[in-house]
């Protein structure tokens, strides 16, 4: 850390020793910018898939139904018992017995719109909305079995299973692509630093032959190239952020699948990209400079 600080304070003298322009400089800037841009998109993608996964599992996990299967005489007391149990269960946000119309709507796809509700022996259904954090499904089942033996809790696990798996997998893909882009970025920035240092091999030799200490030479290069990588990555990230902000908003179009983009504090994450690029460039340039120096007596 102290080394980084010394570096950023820098020495105006040593800085002058490194050429300001040229293909090596452009390369470092450009590679960092492209990588910042890519990382920005990867980050957005990761967040989007994460949000999507959350929405799928949360949206489905949040609702459950309790069905009362009991002889006609016991339906009413068991429903009341079940409601009491549910209202006392921590993690349950809302409990509501469905009206006859609501129950009819549920079966409509199978019986048609004008199903004769009254004629059907439709069971009593109670909609349960889960709070965050949710309830303990097993514990709830046990209590219901004890106090309202005809009450069956259906937490839609059957439907949820595959969707939750899909959401997890999507989130995994997001993080995977983020990791791969981060690795490739580090590789590219390292290669760029190496090429830039190699292009400056003559400068390093001349400095050394004129009595410069290794530290002086390394610091001059490390400072210049770390700054370049930082600035390049910041530019690329800003460009990426602009591009993402300009994409048509997702909620307007679909609502189900969230679009790219960050919400609220999520916009703070991209701020990490430039320092990380700078840190990679710092390490890569220092290693490359030391390697070049070792080639000169």
């Amino acid at each position: 850390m102290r080394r980084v600080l010394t570096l950023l304070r820098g020495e105006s003298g040593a800085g002058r020793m490194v050429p300001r322009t040229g293909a090596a400089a452009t390369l470092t800037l450009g590679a960092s910018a492209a990588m910042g841009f890519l990382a920005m998109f990867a980050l957005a993608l990761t967040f989007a898939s994460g949000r999507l996964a959350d929405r799928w599992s949360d949206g489905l996990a949040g609702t459950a139904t309790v069905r009362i299967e009991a002889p006609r005489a016991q339906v009413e007391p068991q429903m009341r018992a079940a409601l009491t149990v549910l209202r006392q269960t921590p993690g349950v946000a809302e409990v509501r017995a469905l009206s006859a119309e609501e129950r009819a709507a549920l079966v409509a796809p199978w019986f048609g719109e004008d199903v004769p509700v009254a004629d059907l022996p439709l069971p009593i259904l109670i909609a349960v909305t889960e709070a965050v954090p949710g309830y303990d499904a097993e514990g709830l089942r046990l209590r219901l079995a004890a106090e309202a033996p005809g009450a069956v809790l259906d937490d839609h696990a059957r439907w949820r299973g595959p969707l939750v798996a899909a959401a997890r997998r999507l989130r995994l893909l997001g993080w995977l692509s983020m990791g791969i882009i981060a690795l490739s970025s580090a590789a590219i920035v390292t290669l760029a630093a190496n090429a830039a240092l190699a292009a400056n091999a003559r400068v390093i030799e001349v400095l050394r032959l004129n009595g410069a200490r290794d530290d002086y030479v390394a610091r001059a290069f490390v400072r210049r190239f770390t700054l370049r990588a930082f600035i390049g990555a910041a530019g690329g990230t800003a460009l990426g952020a602009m591009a993402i902000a300009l994409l048509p908003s997702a909620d307007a179009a679909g609502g189900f699948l969230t679009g790219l983009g960050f919400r609220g504090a999520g916009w703070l994450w991209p701020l990490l990209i430039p320092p990380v690029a700078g840190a990679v460039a710092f390490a890569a340039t220092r290693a490359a400079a030391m390697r070049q120096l070792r080639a000169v007596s």
Partner: protein
Amino acid sequence: MIELQDVSYAYGGEAVLRGMDLTLAPGSFHFLTGPSGSGKTTFLRLLARQLVPTGGTLRIFGDDAAAMDRDAVAGVRRRIGVVHQDLAFLDHLSVAENVALPLTVAGRSDPEAVRELLAWTGLGSRARALPPQLSGGERQRMALARAVVMSPDVVLADEPTGNVDWEMSMRLMTLLVELNRMGKTVLIATHDLGLIRAMKGRASARTLRIRDGAPELAGAGL
């Protein structure tokens, strides 16, 4: 000051220089001559600790060249000014900045010395040019100016006048003679026997000639 005991050097294969026993006393003035490819540049590179002897012991300012760490080498180079035969400059810095380079890397600054040296070597009007914009001879003069700007204890010059005319050669030599009078050690590698003869009268210079891979004192015949 600089002592060689049975020093040899080989670039991989056969030794270019071998069996060198020699002492460069403080305040001495030497010419080094020998045919092209005989090892003059190699010898100067050893003295400036650009190369490490492959055999024997070389002591620079009392320290063993083979045992120095890299910072010690940088320290030695601040006390030895070198005119390299291939004149390496930083092409993105001005002539004046290149001449000031040894001062800059040592964290010092001496604009007065830089100005005077540029004027003496006839580069006053080119101080802001970049090295690639100079003529061959101008670059050579710039290299000499850079070598002496720190007023180092030792000056090693490798063919410092190969690309300049006779009058300018004499002017550059005067600079080195002046430094020698101030007590600095001077060694000039050159194939130009005319130059050596012309200087014989002006400085108490001795001439080393490389023969069989080792510099030896040339007779008065030269």
